[in-house]
Each structure stands twice: as C-alpha cells, then as structure tokens.
C-alpha cells in the first residue's frame, strides 16, 4: 500500500504534560491539560474548531475514550474514534486520512494515562500464554534479539548503548520521567529480566498525557506556528508466531520501502529518528530495517552511542524515548519530533533538523503490525 499525503495534512499543534509521577491525578485531567497546551501551541482560541477527535485505549481499558473526553472538554466533534491497536502512528494515520479525505478539517488525538505501578512496574504486562508462562511484550523482543545475536554475532552491548543514550537525552528534557544518570556499568549490572534483556532494556510505566492537533494544509496556514507536514506513511502487518514466520521484522522492512518510495527520499535524508521502543531491541531493529545500516550492522553503527546522540549523524529519540522519557504509546515521540523540526528544543536541539522519521511496531492477538511516518517542515527540500 503506497500512500503519500504530501502537502495535504500537517501537525499544527502539540501539547504534553510532564511524564512521570502524577499522584492520584486522573488520565482525563492530564489529557485535558495536554489538549489545552496543544490548542495554545496552534494558536487556536476557539476549541469548537476541533471537528474530529481520536482517543486510544490500552488492553486493560485504561486510556482515553473520545466520546467521554469530548464531554470532559466541552467540545462536539462530528467524528470520534479509537482504534483497536491505537498507538500513535496507527491513530495519526487514521486521522490524516480523515483530513485528507475532507471528512474533517482540524482533528485532535488526545491521550493520557496515570496507571497503577507508575514509575515502578515494567510496561508491556501482557499474558500471551498461561500454559507456558509467556508474559510481557519484552519476551517477544527477547526472542527476536536472541535470533539476531545467533545470526549476526551481536551482543547486548548495543542495547546498553541505546539505553544509556536515551537516558542522556532524558537528562536534557525536564518533562522526561526517568532522568537520573545511567552509565554502561549501570546497564550491565541491572538485573536480568527476560534473558537476554535486562531491566534497563524495558520501559516502565509512567503517568502523563499528550495531544496532537492536525489540520489540512489550507487550514494550517492560519495557525500560530510552523506546520509540520506528513510526507508519507508506510504500514504493514503479518501473522507471526503461529505461522512459523521468524520474527525478523520483515513487515518493518516493507513499511520502510513504502515510506521512502512515496516520499522520494532515502534514509540519508532523515535528520532525526524516533523509533517506538517498548524495549531497546525495537530501536536497534529500526536502525537496520529503515536502512541506516545493513542487517546485522546495528552494533557497529551505534558504536559508543555518540552517533545516535544530539550532535551525532542520526540523533535518535532526543526526548529520551519510552525508555527514559516515559511510556505514552508514541505520542511524546511525535511531540518531540514536531518541536525538533520547528527548532524549539533548546539544549537538545538537533542542528537544522528538517526531516523526521517515526517508526513503530507492535503485536496484538498474534498479529504483528508496523506503521511509520516521514514528517518534514515546509522548506525541507528548498
């Protein structure tokens, strides 16, 4: 499926709360705060201009129901929705399609959550198989990484470099959830959880909210800040375990191909990369599958980590990602991406960032989905 929304859909406003501990605050209260921030960011004074509203829910039912949120916020969007597998890219693609089709002009994606176990419990607490004790999303990533190590001779050192680099970025981000300094020794000494993954390979639960407002390119011109455009999207899905397909991230490679072909650019044109990382493995996979290095080459590519740092060749998850920034189903990645392309990131600003790539994958009910988006500022190819 080749798709491009070139110059037709833009992100015009982003807002987010601090990620982390939020006491007994309700996810809806946090989401309202983020929504207010996004409207202000876009320079939208009349909240009733939002004519589409998307929310998202977790497997346990927590999250934002868009109908309920529209009552909380006192708005009456004509279109609402929440997807079954609703992490950021899947939902934003859906929203972009609604705007591209003309079904609505200005759409908000709002999400907030303050889960039990915030700041302590590991995220991804899914029960895949109670006969065999197959628990947690990290287990699937672990299976993939064991294959990778076996095939390419890679080690967990590269995962540690990714975890440490994420933490360095979070240290520069006052809104990040986990900011205490971390070294490679801290990583190596962190408890083994699901071998070969350690606790620092897996993101933890945290509270927080974010909101993203999208509009048609015509409407975007009236907004306060530089619109960030959708250049292209890529999506793929595969059945995985039961079909006996090796978990080699093949859908990710197909999504990457669609994405680059539709935009007419390649990995060398990407200024900043935002992989959705429930674990460090997902970030390592994105480097290979989106063509930044050869299959098996992630460890050599990452090296001592500076290459994926703010001033490196390919800055990655400059806000700290899920690993250190806080887990919010990819929304904070998008908020950061937009702010990077606008040049608003202060001490963690990537110089002259014009093109950003967001890549996410995930499994649900034995199906593995992948979705990615290329974003750019209007003058990216000037």
């Amino acid at each position: 499926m080749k798709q491009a929304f070139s110059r037709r859909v833009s992100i015009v406003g982003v807002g987010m709360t601090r990620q982390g501990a939020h006491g007994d605050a309700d996810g809806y209260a946090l989401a309202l705060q983020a929504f207010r921030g996004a409207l202000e960011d876009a320079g939208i004074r009349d909240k009733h201009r939002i004519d589409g509203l998307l929310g998202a829910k977790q497997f346990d039912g927590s999250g934002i129901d868009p109908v309920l949120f529209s009552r909380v916020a006192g708005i009456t969007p004509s279109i609402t929705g929440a997807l079954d597998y609703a992490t950021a890219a899947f939902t934003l693609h859906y929203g972009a399609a609604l705007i591209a089709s003309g079904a609505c002009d200005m759409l908000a994606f709002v999400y907030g959550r303050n889960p039990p176990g915030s700041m302590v419990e590991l995220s991804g607490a899914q029960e895949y198989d109670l006969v065999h004790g197959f628990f947690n999303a990290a287990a699937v990533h672990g299976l993939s990484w064991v294959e990778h190590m076996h095939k390419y001779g890679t080690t967990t050192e590269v995962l540690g470099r990714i975890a440490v680099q994420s933490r360095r970025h979070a240290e520069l981000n006052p809104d990040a959830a986990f900011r205490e300094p971390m070294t490679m020794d801290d990583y190596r000494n962190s408890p083994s959880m699901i071998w070969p993954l350690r606790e620092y390979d897996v993101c933890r639960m945290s509270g927080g909210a974010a909101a993203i407002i999208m509009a048609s390119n015509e409407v975007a011109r009236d907004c306060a800040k530089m619109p960030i455009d959708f250049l292209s999207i890529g999506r793929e899905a595969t059945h995985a375990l039961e079909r006996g397909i090796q978990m080699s991230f093949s859908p990710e490679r197909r999504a990457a191909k669609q994405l680059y072909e539709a935009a007419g650019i390649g990995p060398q044109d990407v200024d900043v990369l935002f992989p959705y990382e429930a674990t460090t493995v997902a970030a390592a996979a994105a480097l290979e599958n989106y063509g930044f290095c050869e299959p098996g080459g992630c460890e050599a590519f990452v090296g001592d980590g500076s290459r994926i740092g703010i001033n490196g060749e390919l800055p990655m998850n400059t806000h700290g990602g899920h690993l250190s920034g806080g887990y919010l189903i990819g929304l904070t990645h998008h908020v950061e991406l937009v702010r990077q392309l606008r040049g608003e990131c202060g001490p963690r600003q990537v110089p002259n960032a014009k093109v950003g790539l967001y890549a996410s994958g995930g499994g649900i009910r034995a199906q593995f989905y992948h979705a990615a988006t290329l974003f750019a500022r209007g003058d990216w190819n000037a």
Partner: protein
Amino acid sequence: MPERTRPKPKNRFEQAYWDALARHQLSLQRCKGCGFVRHPPGEFCPECWSGEFEWQPLSGTGSIVSIIWYMKSLDARFPEVPYNVALVRLTEGPALISNVVGSAFGEINIGDPVRARYCDETDFTALLFEKGSAG
C-alpha cells in the same frame, strides 16, 4: 511447580486438540483443500478458507527457532526461575510457543532438535519439549 492454566476455549475445534494431548499425541488440523497445517485450531483454513480438514497426528519433533529465559518471576503462577520460553518449529511446518524442560540455561540453543514431552496437569495436558531427536 508452575501453575499452568489451560486457555479458555475460543471455538469448538479446540477440544479435539486438547483431547489428543491428553492421549500424549500432538495433532493439528490439516486442510483437505490445500494441505496447510494450521495452529491454533479453527473452523476454516486461513489460507484457502476451506472448512474441510482432518486431524493429523504429528511427530512431535522440531527445532528451536529462538529461546528466552525468565530470570525474574513476572507472575505468581510461574514462581520458579530461571525457566525458558521457546519458539519451536515443528518438523511438519507450524511453529508454536512452548517450554524446553530438562535443560539448564546455556544447554539449549537455536537450531537444537527437540521432541514433545507431555506434561499431565490436573485437568489438561500441556505440550512441552525436551532436547533430543525423534525416539
């Protein structure tokens, strides 16, 4: 000992799978339309949508596609660590998630041959594997 829980049935075709395991026989549905061997059990072949099938007894042999080890208990029903979870590709094609019992950490690796070992619980039989070839 882990407290293994048989999953709630999602359809009426699963019972025959569990009945066969109780007889210490792994059987999966083989499509009469296209020959595809499917798992988990279901009414229609996901390849050709045929509803015609037969239960095919399998050899119970396979090999390790990948294997992870839980070093920390994430659930009170599986308190003893380390234990492994493996993706096993059966000789006849499909792959499934299971445990390889009887091997310590480091003694079982990708590509190693495994064979079925049936584990009788109070109300069902779990399909596990152990290292080794047929026989």
